[in-house]
């Protein structure tokens, strides 16, 4: 589904990603872990198509398409979703109106009829339950006045409604208490099936207790320095990132 080859990315002329290779197949969940400043969020933003991030080398293929050729909204319409680390507030635009606009834009791109108000509301009610979203948040402006936890939950709610093929979660666990963490994880788990893939970006292992990954990759200084299974995350929890800063033991990336 996603194939990243030798990806180098600059931000403001500074190289942040320095040769990433990663393959994610349908049905898989990959965790990307790493210390602060290792390039985790850069990877998420590049995948979503943020203009400030410049690909200097390498290629990203999403379902065989060169991602660099797609605008951010085209990527979204093709089934990519990024749950933001810092969800953005949009005053004056209600959460439901926003979501309906987004969903119908994606449906239009897929050649589907727009969802009418009744069907949309039914869908929203169903997905709200998934993340225990307070109904009042539906009618408030997008993320405005939401608590940190509500914002993160709202991201997962958006994801559930938009029904992506590849979901990228950028530190969705930060700022969440254990209960909220479990709810968010359950929301993501409900989406997991053999046709979809999930990339979880996190600093800590605790989310992975609820959202169990198939693969774990350690990112340090813009490179994947170690890849493994679930146990790698536990190892990090025990020992921290010490000793993982330099690529001592580069495993063949999954999928090769």
């Amino acid at each position, binding site marked *: 589904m996603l194939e990243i080859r030798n990806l180098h990315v600059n931000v403001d002329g500074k190289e942040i990603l320095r040769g990433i290779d990663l393959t994610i197949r349908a049905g898989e969940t990959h965790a990307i872990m790493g210390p602060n400043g290792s390039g985790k969020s850069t990877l998420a933003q590049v995948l979503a198509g943020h203009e400030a991030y410049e690909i200097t080398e390498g290629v990203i293929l999403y379902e065989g398409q060169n991602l660099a050729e797609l605008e*951010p909204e085209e990527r979204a*319409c093709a089934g990519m*979703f990024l749950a933001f680390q810092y969800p953005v507030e*949009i005053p004056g*635009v209600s959460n439901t109106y926003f979501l309906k*606009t987004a969903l119908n*834009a994606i449906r239009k791109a897929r050649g589907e009829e727009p969802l009418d108000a009744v069907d949309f509301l039914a869908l929203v009610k169903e997905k709200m339950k998934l993340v225990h979203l307070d109904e009042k948040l539906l009618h408030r402006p997008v993320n405005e006045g939401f608590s940190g936890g509500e914002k993160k939950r709202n991201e997962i709610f958006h994801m559930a409604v938009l029904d992506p093929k590849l979901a990228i979660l950028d530190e969705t666990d930060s700022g969440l208490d254990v209960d909220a963490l479990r709810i968010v994880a359950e929301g993501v788990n409900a989406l997991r099936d053999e046709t979809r893939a999930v990339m979880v970006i996190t600093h800590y292992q605790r989310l992975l207790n609820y959202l169990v990954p198939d693969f774990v990759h350690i990112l340090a200084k813009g490179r994947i320095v170690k890849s493994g299974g679930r146990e790698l995350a536990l190892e990090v929890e025990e020992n921290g990132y010490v000793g993982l800063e330099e690529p001592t033991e580069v495993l063949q990336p999954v999928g090769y």
Partner: protein
Amino acid sequence: MPTATETIKDLALHEYKYGFVTDIESDVAPKGLNEDIIRFISAKKNEPEFLLEWRLKSFRHWLTMVEPTWPHVKYPSIDYQDIIYYSAPKAKSGKPKSLDEVDPELLATYEKLGIPLREREMLAGVAVDAVFDSVSVATTFKKKLSELGIIFCSFSEAVEHHPDLVRKYLGSVVPYTDNFFAALNSAVFSDGSFVYVPKGVRCPMELSTYFRINAANTGQFERTLIVADDDAYVSYLEGCTAPMRDENQLHAAVVELIAHDHAQIKYSTVQNWYPGDKEGKGGIYNFVTKRGKCLGVNSKISWTQVETGSAITWKYPSCILLGDNSVGEFYSVAMTNHYQQADTGTKMMHVGKNTKSTIVSKGISAGRSNNTYRGLVKIGKAAENARNYTQCDSMLIGEKCGAHTFPYIDVKNNTAQIEHEASTSKIGEDQIFYCRQRGISTEDAVSMIVNGFCKEVFRELPMEFAVEAQKLLGISLEGSVG
């Protein structure tokens, strides 16, 4: 809604009535302005003596006035002797013969607004051959109104059929001495609308210039007068959401509203005249004086405006709150893009006791445009317990535009309560990126954010206007981001 053909039909009848068809040559006054020209205009329109006198007085006063320089707008000086002050409706030969000859950008806008083909032709000024329907919407509509005693006609018709009403109310809210452009309009006004709603009558439908005879050619000096007698109610929609093809650069209109005891007037405008091109060339100068007088007790006047067109907009729809307990409202969205300039706002003059006013202004600036809110809240000595609430928000799109706010408050009675809130915000790239990541294109994202910003004003618009106004903002904003 009448089709283009109906409008053409009305136009044709009108021409016949005044004999325009027979002699087109003499129906254009020579360039320039003097008392002879004014006499010519008045004679052409068969006006009664009092009106000619009033025009002449206005003209003489205008000569003593100077063009205002205080608005926050810039434009090359206007040569008032280089304008044709009277011309009969254009002959077909001067107009584009089909839509193929019309500016494709204009056509693209009609397409996006979903305007029916026939109407597009009318708006673009295409010479449509009139094919008459036996019963036009306009005729049925007029019949229903006249049964209720409501007068809704062109200003010229009002002068002819209801001269006493015209004489009584004309200039009673905006005297010809009021300001430079109002004086000019009073001297040379061409036509416009007249509405009179009698005592106790609630006008059952929104009155729109769409339905008025001769709506397509009111000219650049439009004059509108709306009177709601005791306990009457009327909602009036001015203009059209589609851009109008228009060669006239200067538009100086005057609108006067009069509300008697317990009467209510709601006046909504969507103005989308030609704003000039992306480099700031051309476009309409829209210098308008709009004022309402709440003459009676418990009367109410509401102005709602959505201003997206014109190269320069200079207008302050205002309320004189004379009657005790009267209410004035002003809801405004002013959007400027490219090199457009807008200096707009309102004046709320509290004279009577327990008078209330509400001002909600939303200014959006994009491109290299400048957008100014200018408002005056004046509480007179006798205005016990007057109240005003003002909310004035600006939104900036991009780095090169400007937003300015000049609120004036003048209070002469210490029982007054005045609130003023203001904010300035910017559409951030992070907001746009967030929307795009969810599948929403940049243009849709901007339009969604701007519409959210304007929600409180759109709520005040009649339904069909609100929908078009939203589309219109989206179109006006095209190319302003990214």
